[in-house]
């Protein structure tokens, strides 16, 4: 099974949004947590295994003003960090085929 470029959030992880639109991602299995800014929150909400990174970046550019040219790179780095820490993964080909 090959990985796609479609990130998917670990379903056990809880998004805890705070008063200023930043949020804490909390994994109750491990008690690991990571803080994220509003752009990261928007990315997280789109990590459904159906959207590609390019799709997500495209949507983010429509939702936020003054998105930098480096958005794809930064968002990819964010997703990779989440994946390295067990907060997310990449959807597998088979699941997409089954869907």
């Amino acid at each position, binding site marked *: 099974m090959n990985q796609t470029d479609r990130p998917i959030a670990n379903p056990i992880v809880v998004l*805890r949004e705070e008063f*200023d639109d930043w*949020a804490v991602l909390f994994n109750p299995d491990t*008690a690991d947590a990571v803080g994220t800014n509003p752009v990261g929150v928007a990315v997280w909400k789109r990590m459904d295994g159906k959207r590609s990174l390019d799709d997500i970046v495209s949507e983010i550019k429509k939702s936020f003003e003054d998105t930098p040219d480096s958005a794809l790179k930064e968002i990819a780095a964010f997703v990779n960090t989440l994946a390295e820490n067990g907060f997310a993964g990449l959807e597998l080909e088979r699941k997409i085929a089954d869907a």
Partner: protein
Amino acid sequence: MKPWKKGLAGERTINTLYFYLTEGCNLACRHCWMGPRFDATGNHYPTLPVESFETAIREAKSLGLSGVKLTGGEPLLHPHFSRLLEIVRREELKLTVETNGLLCTPEVAAEIAKSPNRFVSVSIDGTDAATHEWVRGVPGSFEAARQAVRNLVAAGIMPQVIFTVMRSNVDQVDAMVRMVQDLGAASLKFNVVQPTARGEKLHENLETLNIADLIALGRYVEQELAPNTRLDLFFHYPHAFKALSRIASGEGCGVCGIFGIMGVIASGHYALCGIGEQVPELVFGEVGKDRLAEVWRENAVLKALREGLPEKLEGVCSRCLLKERCLGSCVAQNYYSKSSLWAPYWFCEQAEEAGLFPSSRLGTRPA
């Protein structure tokens, strides 16, 4: 998260020595967590010998020392303050001075300014003499503190003003920002009264703000006031209450620096920090008599803290997602309150009891 700074041998380094230079102080502040005895001239109570100052620095440099903080009591009361500054310059150390400003003349300010890497804070607790001096206990101290800020600015130092909030001055928060900006300071830090020494009495007498008001004030300072002033504003409460954006920007206020500091109190003893003046069991040895390297590596309290923090923290601190950054906020305060290195921080404990601890910042590992 940044790794703890370690030396070549993999051991933790002493980043900063905190020198509590005088047992006396020329003010009599109601909220002081050290409780020094009143000493208008600096001649009545012990001050740290220059030789002890030099010895501690010499021994700490081989353990990674990069800076010193000179505080008190009141550091400018030290009879050889200029000599201490010379030593700091000679050793090329970062310099931090915490002063009430009474003795910060243009000459003293210029002497401090000779250190290329320096940071100075001046305490002012109100926007008028009556408010400040009710807290500080000495007539004339308000104008002297303001003049100290001006003298520092004239010498090329943009100081920080520290304002301790309590019931008697909380209505001056907005005006304080304006006054400090007009004085030319770089930043304004809002301190919370700690329930230690005289501060404990202030808490008992209900002269301090309650937990709900403190949390609300912190939010107001960070979210409403800070974006609208050229000053850097800091509210000294634990990380669990700070906006993530403030934490992400690197603000370290409210974090215990315990892994990288060593206190040296006026009697010439090493201690956890200034708490050694209040709690004898947190005094670790004597400068010149005990080798600092041995104290730093072998002292049982320091070893216990390195092995136990933050995992052994108790109460709400044990469940806080920010405990690895915060480290219990202030180990000295926690120990003073409950005689335990692992006791939760009073502020967080009160907030949890009042249902005000941010639920998004709590989480425990499954058993």
